[in-house]
């Protein structure tokens, strides 16, 4: 079984503060990783990944091993951000999992088409969310090997 030497770093782009809180709590509850960082929209996500603007100091923005992406966000939505990440040679190796309230077939299809590694419809209950985050963690942290992350 693939063991991660360093803790897996998650970065979540989510504009709703209540949802951010729920995700953080679900991560704590499911014990998969305490390394989760948040950005609030697609513009901030790309700033973070490219160490720009308020993320100019890379030590404040450790490169994520996995990105969790909401679809509906202001300024730059998840679809645009995903397309931009997947067309950037320096970023496209980072797996992006869409985590959204949408379950529209069109969103699912389009997300996979532009390079999402998976699409998860956010469960409506907290217990459901914890179960989903557990499943996510067991897959991406316990059995999958992610690229070596060379963040200092």
């Amino acid at each position, binding site marked *: *079984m*693939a063991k991660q030497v360093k803790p897996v770093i998650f970065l979540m782009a989510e504009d709703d503060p209540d949802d951010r809180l729920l995700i953080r709590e679900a991560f704590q509850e499911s014990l998969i990783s305490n390394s989760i960082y948040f950005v609030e929209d697609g513009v901030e996500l790309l700033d973070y990944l490219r160490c720009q603007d308020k993320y100019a100091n890379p030590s404040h923005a450790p490169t994520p091993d996995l990105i969790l992406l909401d679809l509906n966000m202001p300024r730059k939505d998840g679809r645009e951000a995903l397309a931009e990440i*997947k067309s950037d040679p320096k970023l*496209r*190796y*980072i*797996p992006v999992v869409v985590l959204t309230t949408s*379950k529209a*077939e069109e969103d*699912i*299809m389009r997300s*996979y*088409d532009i*390079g999402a*590694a*998976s*699409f*998860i*419809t956010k469960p409506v209950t907290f217990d459901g969310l914890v*179960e*989903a985050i557990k*499943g*996510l963690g*067991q*897959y*991406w942290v*316990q*059995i*999958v*090997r*992610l*690229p*070596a992350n060379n963040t200092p």
Partner: protein
Amino acid sequence: MKYKSQSVTILIAEDDPDDCLLMEEVFRESSQGYNLVFVQDGIELFEYLRQQASYATSKSVKRPDLILLDLNMPRMDGLEALAEIKADPNLRSIPVVVLTMSSTEEDVLRTYELGGAGFIIKPANIEAMAEVVKVLNQYWFEVVELTR
């Protein structure tokens, strides 16, 4: 269960017959009843996906929900096959998970750059393989939404 077991198709590209047997056994024991399709290399993988050659007249060819891909295969290897799947507009929405003996850092990086949805080092014994298959099934068929 999100999906009826009989409606789930997993396409496995694997040239080693012992590994195929092992996977078949593990999937069967996890009693999911999924439809497993084995192909032996990248060429046969595309014959299946595009319904060509021996699959041209077969009525049982179903679009897979998930592809498990070995890297080291004759004729067309896994990374070539992955690149071709992800370049094909009709196929690229199918998630592809690499399941291989290789563990070079370069293969891991290339897999994700090409659009792989996971890189798993193939466990050598049946217990570890059973654990991997359990987590894999749980994630892809209980947590994730797939294109249907």
